[in-house]
């Protein structure tokens, strides 16, 4: 009966379903788009900066003191080899130094990297624009960012003097040749980073085999909590947990996580208002439908239908309309999302802005169960509430008055 009722006035029903479908479609697409851009941002940030996880000496994250080292990184490497979800890992060490070219001097944080491991963990190798990436046997060669190279006025082949303070407080000094120059698009990174081969770094800065971070990339973002827990347990088992900590990307880059939260919250406010506007449209349609059918309900009640049944009838009518609406919305929204997931969305004129957040050129929405269902479910909830009001109203209907309603 409910099913037939809703098709008595197909135009109205279609419009209502249209409103619901539109809201659902939009929510599916926008949520997928947001989640997709977060994933792009996280992935590019971990690929340039921090990795998904790092093992560091306790306290190194807050105060980047050269003396707080991971003394024997190979032990951690062995543990990581046993965790299948780990895709790759590498070692890094850092120290602040004076870098001088023939006519310029700058103070920069120097990073020691393991060329083979770094190529698997970060994008650095792919970003080299001039010269070459470091190879495993290299000593006393360096990679540096494009803006730094410009400020120092050097090209591949030039020599740089590195002057800093070693782990034991001694003076660390060496001369390195520029092997390659990279450009990430992140000005901050390209202006203030220089990479040396780890063995050279360890020798110059008297690291005695120590590093500052074991940088880990997991097979997927979802596997990170599991790897973190595993790693912590195994560190505790080998009695290393006292001096070392495991930090995930959220702890390594708190700004990124909060930025995402903020964006998500503002998104939710937008969606909430959108749903509210839709809810009023729907409420209106339901109310209208009932005014129109007051006589009909009067008759139904006069022949003995209980108000409870009428309420149920109306709720079923509205729910089936909503159900059609949101399933259409989910279907169309998913198709739209999948199309753009394959094609990407180009933002003309904004690539400079986006590249500063680590997003290059195109944005890719990402359809997931969460993004496909959470928005439409909210619509379902709100339309149900919107339908409840008119449905309960008929309980107060009096048969005689209702039948004489013009």
């Amino acid at each position, binding site marked *: 009966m409910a099913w037939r009722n809703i098709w008595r006035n197909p135009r109205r029903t279609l419009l209502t379903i249209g409103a619901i479908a539109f809201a659902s479609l939009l929510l599916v697409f926008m949520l997928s788009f947001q989640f997709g851009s977060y994933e792009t941002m996280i992935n590019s940030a971990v690929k340039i900066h921090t990795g998904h996880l790092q093992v560091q000496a306790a306290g190194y994250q807050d105060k980047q003191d050269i003396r707080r080292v991971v003394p024997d990184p190979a032990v951690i490497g062995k543990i990581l080899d046993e965790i299948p979800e780990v895709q790759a890992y590498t070692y890094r060490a850092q120290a602040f130094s004076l870098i001088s070219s023939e006519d310029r001097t700058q103070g920069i944080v120097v990073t020691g990297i393991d060329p083979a491991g770094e190529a698997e963990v970060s994008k650095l190798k792919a970003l080299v624009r001039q010269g070459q990436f470091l190879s495993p046997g290299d000593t006393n060669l360096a990679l540096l960012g494009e803006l730094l190279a410009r400020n120092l006025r050097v090209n591949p082949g030039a020599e740089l003097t590195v002057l800093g303070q070693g782990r034991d407080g001694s003076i660390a000094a060496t001369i390195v040749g520029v092997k390659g120059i990279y450009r990430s698009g992140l000005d901050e990174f390209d202006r203030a980073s220089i990479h040396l081969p780890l063995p050279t770094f360890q020798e110059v800065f008297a690291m005695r085999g120590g590093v500052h971070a074991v940088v880990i990339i997991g097979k997927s973002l979802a596997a990170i909590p599991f790897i973190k827990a595993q790693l912590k347990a195994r560190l505790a088992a080998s009695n290393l947990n006292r001096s070392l900590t495991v930090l995930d990307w959220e702890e390594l880059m708190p700004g990124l996580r909060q930025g995402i939260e903020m964006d998500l919250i503002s998104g939710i406010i937008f969606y909430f208002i959108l749903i509210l506007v839709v809810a009023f*449209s729907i409420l209106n349609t339901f109310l209208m439908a009932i005014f129109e059918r007051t006589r009909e309900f009067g008759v139904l009640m006069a022949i003995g239908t209980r108000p409870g049944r009428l309420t149920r009838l109306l709720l079923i009518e509205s729910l089936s309309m909503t159900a059609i609406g949101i399933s259409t919305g989910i279907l169309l929204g998913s198709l739209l999302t999948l199309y753009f997931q394959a094609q990407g969305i180009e933002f003309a004129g904004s690539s400079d802005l986006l590249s500063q957040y680590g997003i290059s050129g195109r944005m890719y929405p990402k359809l997931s169960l969460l993004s496909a269902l959470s928005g439409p479910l909210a619509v379902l909830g709100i339309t149900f509430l919107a339908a409840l009001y008119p449905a309960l109203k008929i309980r107060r209907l009096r048969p005689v008055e209702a039948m004489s309603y013009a």
Partner: protein
Amino acid sequence: MHLRLAWRNIWRNPRRTAVIMCAVVIGVWSMILLGALMRGVAAGMIKNGIATLTGHIQVHQRGYRTDPAIENSMTTPEVVENALRKVLPNGAQWARRVRVNAIASNARHSSGVTLVGIDPATEARVSFIGKAIADGRYLKPDDPHGILVGAALLEQFETKLGRKLVLMSQDTAGEIASRAFHIVGSFRAEMQATEKRFIFVTVSAAQQMLKLPNGISEVSVLLPAGANSEDVAARLAAALPSGRYEVHTWRELLPLVTTYLQLMDGFIFIWYVVTFVAMGFGIVNTTLMAVFERIREFGLLKALGMKPGWIIREVLTESFFILIIGMLIGNLLAFACIYALSGSGIDLSAFAAGAEFAGMSRVIYPAFHGKDVVLANLVVIGLGLLVCLYPAGKAARLIPVKALAHT
């Protein structure tokens, strides 16, 4: 008569009118308020960017922007200042600075910083630093060894006021110059990165250290409200000897903010349209219902000789009233909210790191833009009447006899 008829008609079923008006009110309210908040974010970014040593206009030696080194300083700043005096509108302020990359170090730590040599009195009128002192005191004009550092840097260096800080940088002769300063004060900035990056000494101390007699790196100009940066910059460039200097406005100096501003117009418009579509379904539906409910009435009117055009006008006038009243209330509500928020703003301190990541300031004040308000209202009334053409057309095409027979 026409208007009166329409006016009475919309109150024949006050509940229906009220519900659809609610949808319009919420739609318009959200359009205007969220538009104002987005503008507020942008205004905060601009304000912050300009106060953080950018100013509205900067003048440098040609080549400084691509290579901000000591060799690219202006050796005769008087030339620039004479031009500024001639060109700048009343109320404009400017400050001269020495600005170079340097290394700050104490016994335990060292880090790369930007050394800014300032004239304490004029600088306080141009950039944030004059009002940002958190602890200690501001620089005095004759402070040969005083230095101001950010609160975050103080913490990073595990040091405090009164302690020594050594600065190293390359001087004009290409040698490494170093000089010890005493920390006289610490400042707080909107962003932690600013606190860690900039350290301030007097311009004469910086000139002595860098062997830069009388030379400066940049002049930063703050214009009075309402002045057009591009116009002033163009006039300034014309007044300066050609080829030796470069003049940039904040739009060029803060490219990220500029891009964001360009994107925002598009975002706001899309948001308006999306909200409207959500609202539009309700408007069409209700108007359509109202038309069907009154099929007999319209049939009668037509049978009495009313032209289809009149009926369209009648239905549209009713929608127009509903839209206008909804818009009025929506506008008033939005203005009230903007007014309420403009006092304290929306505090994002809980997301300070996130706000910093996005380049936003910690407190957002909604910014009222007449253009957005007009656009929102035009979208609602224009598209609103457009979609109501459909039910109106339906009513106009009724065939009198059939309509009268409709129960």
